[in-house]
């Protein structure tokens, strides 16, 4: 069990800085998920923690020991790779015990630790098989088992479920969640899939272009995104951003309106805006409530597409200024495309962002 702390961590490939000053403290036993679009540097950051990439600047500490220049094997970590990285010519048993074979651990102890890991992952019956005889999910289970056998202080997962099909991914996700509860170990998990991030994490770290955009509990990120990037990244379908004009400003709220939006007062949490500014109103699709009476609605547009999923109905709406808006309506409802539609929403659940820039934290 261990704590882990990063301060001012940077990584440069030649002139290109891919990790630009990361500060995160991870508590003992915490499950932290790095999430972000592909190419944002989340995997690089994980590989720096593992010791597979050199650290260009800053400090990385595990249990208060500076490990910047330590070999991967000495850091007390175990890693699970996207491509499993299990040794194809060894049986499952040999794969699980590989680290112990290398460390010349006595046979009896090795056998016992391998059996224990196999029991945790319920794969005792697979021990004598070869990787080629296993399914993708079973292979990833072997990789996780190999990590467990090492009894590491920190588990690192690099997109472990990305090569699995959807159904299996959900099963494995739950298993990893259970595993964390069972072992209580510190785990760092990299994914581009926000569902994995939301369901597994104690805390999520949202990264874009090598910069940490926000660190927080899943619901904190969902309800109080620190910027437009995080707001758009977390949640599915993603948040709508409606261009609006600020008409007047209170100390912590603003009155905004547009052609398709009747004037509404919304809280101003993220950025200070002033009267006359162009802004973007962030509305989650789930919080848009359709209304039958046009007059009662605040937001107006025309239905362009209806997708019925059974549990919810997702509609595409063209607003009056012809921006696209998505609403996710609970239950199975029927709508007719091409008709006018109006929505109401709770202003307290709306987010107001400046229209300037790309909406992410940059340095």
């Amino acid at each position, binding site marked *: 069990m261990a704590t882990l702390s990063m301060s001012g961590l940077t990584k440069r490939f030649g002139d290109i800085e891919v990790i630009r000053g990361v500060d995160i403290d991870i508590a003992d036993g915490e499950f932290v998920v790095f999430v972000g679009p592909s190419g944002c540097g989340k995997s690089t950051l994980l590989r720096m923690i593992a010791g*597979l990439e050199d650290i260009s600047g800053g400090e990385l500490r595990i249990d208060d020991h500076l490990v910047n220049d330590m070999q*991967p094997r000495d850091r007390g*970590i175990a890693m699970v790779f996207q491509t499993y*990285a299990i040794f194809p010519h060894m049986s499952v048993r040999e794969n699980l015990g590989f680290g112990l074979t290398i460390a010349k651990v006595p046979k009896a102890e090795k056998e016992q630790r391998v059996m224990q890991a196999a029991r945790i992952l319920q794969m005792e019956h697979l021990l004598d098989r070869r990787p*080629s005889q296993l399914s993708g999910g079973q292979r990833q289970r072997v990789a996780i088992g190999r990590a467990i056998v090492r009894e590491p202080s920190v588990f690192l997962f690099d997109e472990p479920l990305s090569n699995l099909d959807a159904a299996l991914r959900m099963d494995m996700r739950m298993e990893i969640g259970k595993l964390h509860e069972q072992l209580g170990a510190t785990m760092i998990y990299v994914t581009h899939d926000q569902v994995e991030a939301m369901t597994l994490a104690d805390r999520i770290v949202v990264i874009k272009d090598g910069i940490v955009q926000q660190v927080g509990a899943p619901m904190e990120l969902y309800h109080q995104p620190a910027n437009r990037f995080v707001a758009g990244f977390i949640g599915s379908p993603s948040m709508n951003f409606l261009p609006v004009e600020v008409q007047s400003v209170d100390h912590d709220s603003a009155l905004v309106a547009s052609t398709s939006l009747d004037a509404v007062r919304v809280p101003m949490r993220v950025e200070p805006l002033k009267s006359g500014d162009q802004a973007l109103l962030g509305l989650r699709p789930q919080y848009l409530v359709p209304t039958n009476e046009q007059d009662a609605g605040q937001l107006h547009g025309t239905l362009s597409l209806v997708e019925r999923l059974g549990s919810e109905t997702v509609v595409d709406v063209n607003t009056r200024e012809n921006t696209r808006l998505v609403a996710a309506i609970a239950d199975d409802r029927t709508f007719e495309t091409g008709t006018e539609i109006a929505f109401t929403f709770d202003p307290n659940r709306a987010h107001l962002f400046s229209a300037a820039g790309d909406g992410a934290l940059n340095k």
Partner: protein
Amino acid sequence: MADSKLTRSNRTGWLMSLPGFTLVALFIIVPFFFAFGLSMTNQRLVSPNPTKYVGLENYRQMLDIALVTLQPERDASGTVIRDDEGTIQYPRLRRLSRSDPAFERYKGMREWFGWQSGESHKAVVVRDPLFWIALRNTLLFVLVVAPVQGGIALGLALLVNQKLRGINAFRTIYFMPVVVSIVVVSLLWRFIYDGNDGLLNNLLDTLSFGAIPGVDWLGNPSTALGAIMAMSIWQAVGFHMVIWLSGLQTISPTLYEAADIEGASKWQAFRYVTWPGLRNTAVLVIIVITMQAFALFAQIDVMTNGGPLDSTQSLVFQAVERGYGKQDISGGSVISVVLFVLVLAISLVQRWLTRDRQN
């Protein structure tokens, strides 16, 4: 394009491959069966006599080998006769085979090698010593060249498999001798090995400040075969390096990262990741080297002609020498067939030894 007559018409396809098939048939398939046929006749390259079928007589002649025990010569009192230096005297095999009915079977055979056993002398006698010497040399050549060349090629492949600036230059340099004809290489190495003023002798002389005397590498029976081995290894090592390299690059880098995290040292990573990952490549390399080594000919033909004292005779060289030098086509064919059976057997054994035991 896909519908063009060229790609659809079966007859066109066969017609176009006809020249190639004809050449392959004419120069590989037909001679192959010819060799079998001719090896059972007394055919000569040019002869006024009609060809006669002799069955396996040629094989019997060439492969005939026996172990004889010679008792020492004794005087009337039964004591062993020794010469002035105390060496035991034995009767000559040639005399025995003419006079002694027990030795009649060995008529025309000569001693290949022998050793002392108690008071008696054991001798391995053969009817065709040149064949047996060629066979021994060829086997020795294969036994040394296959593992050494394969090993060095693997070492080089590991070296040039690193991500370093200018690594392609090294790959090219190591591969270059492969592109040069073996005949040219052999000619050049004759200068290197020259006894009087060769590059190798000069080099050794300079490096040792004259302590190592010059050696006539190709003119000395004890060094000639070794010199040819060294040159052969150097010439083709680049080819096998490239094969190893292609094998190395099929191994996922993630496996090395996983091994690194699990605590494996460089050697352990090689032992547990690289070597098992190269298993199919290894089978290929070993079989290819073995077959190439058995075909040893050009080096001998250019550099030593089998000499000195038959110390560099090889099977293929003997086959050519007999078939064309001595115009004994049937003799050459017999060697070819024996070589074919030998290589086939060894390849099959190698494949069986290196078979996939997993499934």
